[in-house]
């Protein structure tokens, strides 16, 4: 069942690549939160209950509900336009993301380790590189933030792979999530929306070596 959820996770990555509107990204992030909740529930059964409840709450409440709601609030408040404005057309993005998944599969194949479930490795690295690719090829700042949230989802998947033996690492990952998301989303995007009229990376090029 875990494998099913993780395959749907990769499909969500492909879907995000061809998505046109920013709302699609927000919805896919919510979907990924729900999928992570399922994977956590199925995977972490060797750690104590209190810790587990905390982790479950974090995935479902924070990733699937709170952050998407906050993102839509930000989009409405800053009057960000609907288009995602990529630098490369969606078609090429789709090819590149598929190539990323292929390369990750090949890389995972060359590992001879029995301690790690390969599918976790594949999903987490694909999400990581797809998130990085998003940050590099989108113009709007809010899509940068969403790329970062996607990277965090990938990191969370990887931490689940080692989570049974070292639950503290999963807790650390959650702390990273909450901390960085609150910091980035809460404080600065609001300020940027207030100061810059167009929430566009093109505006952020004034700091140069002039």
């Amino acid at each position, binding site marked *: 069942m875990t494998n099913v959820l993780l395959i749907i996770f990769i499909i969500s990555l492909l879907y995000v690549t061809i998505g046109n509107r920013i709302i699609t990204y927000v919805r896919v992030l919510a979907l990924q939160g729900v999928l992570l909740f399922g994977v956590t529930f199925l995977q972490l059964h060797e750690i104590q209950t209190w810790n587990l409840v905390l982790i479950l709450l974090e995935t479902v409440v924070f990733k699937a509900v709170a952050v998407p709601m906050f993102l839509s609030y930000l989009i409405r408040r800053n009057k960000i336009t609907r288009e995602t404005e990529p630098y490369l057309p969606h078609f090429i993005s789709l090819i590149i993301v598929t190539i990323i998944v292929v390369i990750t599969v090949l890389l995972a194949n060359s*590992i001879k*380790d029995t*301690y*790690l479930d390969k599918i976790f490795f594949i999903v987490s690295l694909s999400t*990581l590189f797809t998130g*990085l690719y998003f*940050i590099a090829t989108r113009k709007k*700042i809010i899509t*940068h933030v969403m790329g*970062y949230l996607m*990277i*965090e989802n990938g*990191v969370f998947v*990887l*931490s689940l*792979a*080692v989570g049974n*033996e*070292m639950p*503290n*690492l999963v807790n*650390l*990952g959650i*702390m*990273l999530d909450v*901390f*960085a998301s609150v*910091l*980035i989303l809460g404080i*600065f995007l609001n*300020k*940027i929306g207030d*100061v*810059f009229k167009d929430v566009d990376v093109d505006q*952020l090029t*004034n*700091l140069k*070596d*002039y």
Partner: protein
Amino acid sequence: MTLIYLISAFVIAGLIFLNRNTVLNYILVVLFGILQTGFAVYACFNYKNTFLQYFSFDSLGLLLLLTLSVVSIAALIHSYLYIKRHDETPQSRAIYFAAIVTLLTSISAAYLANHIAVIWIFTELTTLSASMLIYHHRNKLSLEGTWKYVFICAISITFVFIGILFLSLSLQHAGSTDLSFANLMAHKDQLNPFWLKLAFLFIFTGFTAKLGLVPMYTAGIDAKDKAPAPAGALLSSVLMNMGFVAIFRLYVIISHTSIFHWANLIIFIAAFLSIFVATVYMTKVINIKRMFAYSSIEHMGIVMLGLAAGGIGCYAAVLHIILHTFVKSSIFFQYNQVYRTFQSKSLTHVGNYFKYNPTGAIVLLIGFISATAMPPSGLFVSEFLIFKSLFDANYIILLILVLILLTIVIYAFGKNIFKILFLPVADIDESNIPKINPWESLSQYILLSAAIWLGLNPPAVFVQLIQDAVNFLPK
């Protein structure tokens, strides 16, 4: 004592943040200065002990903590002068001092941590406090600098976390779950090399944001540019040391495993590219603060070259870091006076500084000589030893390329500094130039002479400490 230090430091920070009364704020800041110095002294007496399971006072941590304490006193004094002169609102003053206190505390704790996750937590805290410092002026440009800094540091921290996960995977083969450095050292032969390679790669890439190497150095440049000068001094000296400590501790463990040469190769590539990037940008940069920031990057590149070369290079790397802290922070402290004289950051509007502030100009001159590693600067000793180690390890071509790049750096740096110091600017309005109190340059003289003294005639205790720090590396 460690616990007391941490708790009281955070309490002081919180009180400063919440409180708006000027006198009370300054009293709290002075209290923190005393606390920091007291903690440094305490650390000297408790050498080689471990507290709270996660903080151990080993030689490298101790050395850097002492440098931090010295620089922090100067930073606090200059912050006080800066804030007083700028007539800030109580709120921004409170945030500034609270952020500086948090920054200094987190860096001290990160120096002493012996568990990689603890370093990680305190690095996150430094990101938060540093971003508050960068955003101090609250205008459009500083917002841009803060956003870039926060974003790149967030990505780097995530990379470090992934590296920690891979490290735990490599440790699973040894059957252990404790990620402290001592435990990793004990199991060093059983660590899975593939995961260890990935772990090193990710942790190294993540910490280059703090250390200032390719690929994540870009965050630091804008940060040092936009932060107020005293904070910029801290960001470009002690914060970079924190990145160095984190990488160094992992490197010590890696040096005893089979991936040692691969790790050295990675460090060589990153260091060489950093020096190259710094050279290219220094020849065309116009903003003075950015020039100093790129100079920091070049120094960090040299340090990592020495570390990767091995032998005497490791000793020289640690020496270089300590001396660089003193030199770079004093240059940044002096910069504030330059800005006050000319009201501009750009090279085109600054010139003939000797006429308006001779004391400060001499500081800049000595700083320039030190930063470009000319004798009698202490940095000359450390750079010379690093080049010697590169020669000993037979990296001749690399050495020649680095020397050529450094020559270009000296040319660019020198050209700009001499322009600042001697070349008069056309149509400058001399009536607006304020008279600067020469006593404000006192701290910089002290720091620079400390750098010269430690380089040329180091006390035996100092040498012994550095040798202890690099003791675990293979000769």
